[in-house]
């Protein structure tokens, strides 16, 4: 029993089951809008969890994750726009308002986007990788801002979505349960991947690229595949967000959104199963609650984030585990002062060479 309580997976199952009750409990407490809040949290949890695969498990700091979130969203939005106008996209791809069509398209688009951006970005490492992923995300952001046909900065509204398997997506509870179900599936996948051979390679990439090379592992394609999976997860979340908001705008791929996702992951706990979920829940709820208390909510939120960094290493999951008396593995995603990967062997060789002279 005690062992079960320590297992993150057991907690995840319990949390998801409890969450499933929200649409039942919320109206009883005269707070039906809580369902919408919870939907938003669940969607961000999927996005944050997808980012966690590369950020937490593989230690690859992507500062452009919102790009895939937005790509997924725009895939749904653009297909809907063509559905409602009746003109096919690019002259031959018919539009759609059916989530069973748009969601897979969104996931594929997100995956392709991540594959292209990742293939180029993984030529760099360290801080340069952070910045190049940001650069690509910004390029996409400005591209969508300037796409007049799809609303530009003002975005696209999605008015009528087809029911999915007889379920009405306009019903808040139904949409919430769909999102929650997908979160459950996603977390299950993430858990499998983290424990698989593939996941072991990612853990190796995080802890020592040099060791991985000495083991004979070409990390490039593992990193790229992880990046693509993460991109697909973010795109799925983006598609859900657009279904929830019934609206898509470039705001979804702004750099601040990428930052928010990173903060969710770090806040919750890097490389943990539940960390991103908790992080998303706490951040969204915190903003929601504080902005209801005072219009100067950012003045309070800022120091709270600061305190979490200073005093809760390993994020909230780290704090929880410490309270539970468990050792916290603190994954150093980008070790302080680390040299870019290409220079590392030289880094070790140099002192010897210097002493030589």
């Amino acid at each position, binding site marked *: 029993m005690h062992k079960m309580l320590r297992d993150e997976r057991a907690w995840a199952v319990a949390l998801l089951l409890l969450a499933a009750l929200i649409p039942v409990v919320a109206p009883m407490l005269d707070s039906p809008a809580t369902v919408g809040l919870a939907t938003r949290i669940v969607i961000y949890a999927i996005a944050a969890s997808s980012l966690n695969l590369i950020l937490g498990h593989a230690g690859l700091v992507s500062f452009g994750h919102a790009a895939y979130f937005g790509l997924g969203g725009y895939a749904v939005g653009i297909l809907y726009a063509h559905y409602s106008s009746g003109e096919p996209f690019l002259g031959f791809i018919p539009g759609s308002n059916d989530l069973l069509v748009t969601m897979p398209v969104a996931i594929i688009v997100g995956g392709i986007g991540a594959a292209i951006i990742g293939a180029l970005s993984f030529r760099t490492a360290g801080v340069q990788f952070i910045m190049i992923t940001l650069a690509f995300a910004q390029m996409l952001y400005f591209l969508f801002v300037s796409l007049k046909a799809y609303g530009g900065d003002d975005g696209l509204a999605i008015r009528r979505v087809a029911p999915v398997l007889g379920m009405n997506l306009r019903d808040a509870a139904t949409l919430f349960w769909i999102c929650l179900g997908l979160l459950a599936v996603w977390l299950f996948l993430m858990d499998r991947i983290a424990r698989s051979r593939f996941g*072991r390679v990612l853990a190796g990439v995080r802890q020592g690229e040099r060791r991985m090379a*000495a083991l004979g592992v070409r990390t490039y394609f593992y990193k790229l595949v992880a990046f693509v999976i993460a991109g697909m997860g973010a795109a799925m979340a983006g598609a859900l967000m657009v279904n929830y908001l019934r609206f898509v705008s470039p705001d979804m791929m702004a750099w601040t959104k990428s930052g928010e996702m990173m903060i969710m992951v770090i806040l919750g706990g890097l490389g943990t199963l539940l960390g991103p979920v908790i992080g998303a829940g706490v951040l969204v709820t915190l903003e929601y609650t504080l902005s209801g208390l005072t219009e100067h909510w950012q003045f309070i939120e800022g120091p709270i984030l600061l305190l979490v960094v200073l005093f809760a290493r390993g994020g909230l999951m780290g704090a929880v585990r410490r309270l539970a008396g468990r050792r916290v593995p603190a994954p150093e995603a980008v070790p302080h002062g680390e040299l870019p990967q290409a220079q590392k062997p030289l880094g070790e060789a140099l002192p010897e060479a210097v002493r030589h002279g």
Partner: protein
Amino acid sequence: MAEVPVLSVQHLVKRFGGLTATDDLNLEVLPGELHALIGPNGAGKTTAIGQIMGEITPDRGRILFMGEEVTRLSAPARVARGLARTFQITQLLEDDTAEANVALAVQARAGHSFRFWRDASRDARLLEPARAALEEAGLPRARWALPVADISHGERKQLELAVALASRPRMLLLDEPMAGLGASESLRMTEVLRRLKGRIPMLLVEHDMDAVFSLADRCSVLVYGHCIACDTPDGIRHDPQVRAAYLSEEEAV
């Protein structure tokens, strides 16, 4: 010579800015041989290992492994051909257990890792060879399940060796496996290497001369990146050039 050397380094040169770290280095390791590479601090031993492994690109010269040129191959490609190394400063996955570190090496050897489903920590195909390697490297069984961050320095050195062994190498490059070890730990490591000797050819970089002279079949002496002598341990002991090199080092310090 009838035998094809396992490793042949020919006229290797590497410069860092104005410093010549490797200066026309020639070196051969024969099948079954334990070849020691010694020399004063800063002689360029680690740089040489880095080039043999493919982590540092030499400016000039050739490296042949099993008779085939590997000078332009990447480190992973050389590993695939059977090279493995240990690090002077241990490069281990600190969050993982000792067993998981070795299992990852087994996994890397077992082909691609694009396997997303099965729990690697319960995969007997990884665990059994990993445990065999741990056994071979002499790491006490009780330490296998501990995170690397929690085991001692000496045990980490043994774990480094186990990781290298797990990739079933055709040759081992050992970069100061005894560095920082206590006397009894050094002896234990010497014994482990002695058991491996003959089965796997080894290039051993080491400062512990007792260990070197008791283990090595031949020694090469590196000074300022250049090999000044290559002989049996006895021959090296009495080589005037070597004595001079070590003495001048003493004076300089």
